[in-house]
């Protein structure tokens, strides 16, 4: 009998600590599948960040380093420069990457560090209790914007892919969403492409995964999936924002 589905080899036995319906665990599973398929487990070094994914080092069955809040791209820079033959990636949430770690994100991208950032954008700080994130949508209620985010007092949600797309060191930027099977499949292709570009040594790669956070959003998992589809995708268009491995490097929306 042929086994057609199983646990990826590079995931440990540790159960995910994420809430039901969370996008982080989908991202981990996809990352693990891609690493298995590319047979690069022995060369992989993951960098865990701070937030809900703080325990991601427990889930992957290869070398991992835990970084301080926002500093994962700097840690990954040090790792990759010392071990240029290794595949180095970070797994970061929106608060970690686009708020406290903005400088590390922009400058590692601009230096063209040959690393991959897996960016989970769920528009909220999950671990600390649902506070406003740099990616929280206008009008969205959080524990620190109880009346809803206003642009006047809290500024605008940051679009990371668009922000980074003008930087010279960036090789590949894609935004996908993990709220339906089509999106998950697209997200996996994006992750694979990012790792392949890293292996080819072409520069900085980032895959933004727009993800649902039912707990932080105060929605049932099924409603969170729908809310992402309607609200998040309207502000965060999916697509490839840069890809130096292709001739066309303009933003290409998904079909």
């Amino acid at each position: 009998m042929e086994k057609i589905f199983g646990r990826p080899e590079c995931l440990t036995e540790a159960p995910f600590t994420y809430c039901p319906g969370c996008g982080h665990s989908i991202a981990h599973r996809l990352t693990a599948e891609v690493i298995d398929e590319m047979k690069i487990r022995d060369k992989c070094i993951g960098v865990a960040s701070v937030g809900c994914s703080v325990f991601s080092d427990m889930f992957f069955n290869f070398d991992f380093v835990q970084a301080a809040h926002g500093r994962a791209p700097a840690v990954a820079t040090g790792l990759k420069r010392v071990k240029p033959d290794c595949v180095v990636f970070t797994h970061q949430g929106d608060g970690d990457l686009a708020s406290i770690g903005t400088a590390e994100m922009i400058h590692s991208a601009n230096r063209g560090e040959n690393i991959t950032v897996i960016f989970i954008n769920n528009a909220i700080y999950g671990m600390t209790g649902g506070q406003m994130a740099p990616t929280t949508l206008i009008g969205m209620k959080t524990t620190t914007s109880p009346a809803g985010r206003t642009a006047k007092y809290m500024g605008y949600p940051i679009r990371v892919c668009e922000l980074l797309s003008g930087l010279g060191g960036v090789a590949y930027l894609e935004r996908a969403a993990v709220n339906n099977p089509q999106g998950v499949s697209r997200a996996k292709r994006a992750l694979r492409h990012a790792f392949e570009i890293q292996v080819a040594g072409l520069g900085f790669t980032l895959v933004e995964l727009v993800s649902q956070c039912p707990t932080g959003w105060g929605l049932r998992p099924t409603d969170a999936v729908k809310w992402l589809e309607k609200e998040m995708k309207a502000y965060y268009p999916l697509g490839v924002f840069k890809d130096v491995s292709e001739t066309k490097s303009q933003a290409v929306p998904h079909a």
Partner: protein
Amino acid sequence: MAEERILMKGNEAIAEAAVRAGCRFFAGYPITPQNEIPEYMSWRMAEVGGTFIQSESEVAAINMVYGAASAGARAMTSSSGPGISLKQEGLSYLCGAELPCFYANIVRGGPGLGNIAGAQSDYFQSTRGGGHGDYRVVVYGPSTVQEMVDLTMLAFDVADKYRNPAMILGDGILGQMMEPVVMRPMKDYDPSPKAAWAVGDSAGRARHYISSVYLSPGTLEKHNVRLLRKYQKIEATEVRYEAVGIEDADVVAVAYGTSARVVKSAMSMAKAGGKLRLGIIRPISLWPFPKEIIREVAGRVRDILVVEMSFGQMYEDVLISACGRAKVSLLARTGGGVPSEEEIIEAAERARKSKDAVEIYPAGE
């Protein structure tokens, strides 16, 4: 390369000594008065096949060092007070994750932006840990350019031995001064012992992970006690100091770095004057602090005089070490002020004549 005697600036001597100790990763950000270190490393690392990164911030620099150290490299950064403050977050993580690294603080006057003159006011920050949590870093206070070479090389070894950061606490004067030094030969640094814990190339072994997170109840306390045992071992084995003229001294000065240089000149001056016998205990390791020798000397001299370019920071360590067995006085300068030989002799004489300990500070506005 064999040993050679050359004229070198303190900052450049630290950089070359680091390269010869096997350092192949440098990340740093410009700040006066330490700029010669990254400038030197920018071409020297290229020569020896290492990595030099001018980082976007001090915060990024120490985290790049964290990554490089995780991969088993001998890695370093350097800065001056304001930048070292920014590195404290990363240093706390390096200590928590038990990663070795070397860094130099070429101290300038603080607080705040302060000035760019040499000072010793980062003593507390260096010897108390500096960032959050229960930890220590090994701190060396060189007083010559030669010591900047030798202690830099030692610091790399000590950092690796204990898997903990080790630093040079210099100052703007030592960083900028030129002195003849004997440069040590290039070390054939062997990173293989780090394969037991470093990350990268995991074929054929269980995964390695480097972390300072211990969330399960009780696990952090156990981890911290393990760190404590390590720190106790460092305190028992890594103390370094120089003692001169303490046998027959009327007053024993305690001073490190630049202050100790001036105390030594004052000792010659006092000896020529014939009225005061001045000795010195010069802590070389500031943490671990040479408590024992101070305690011992405090038992047999009446007067100890702490001379420092800060408001009585090391003074507290000397008071703790002397344990009330001697009168401990203080001559403090701050904000880039350097004590003169005359000030030191006058302070020693005042201390000797006074019934109680005296604390001498510079005149304010």
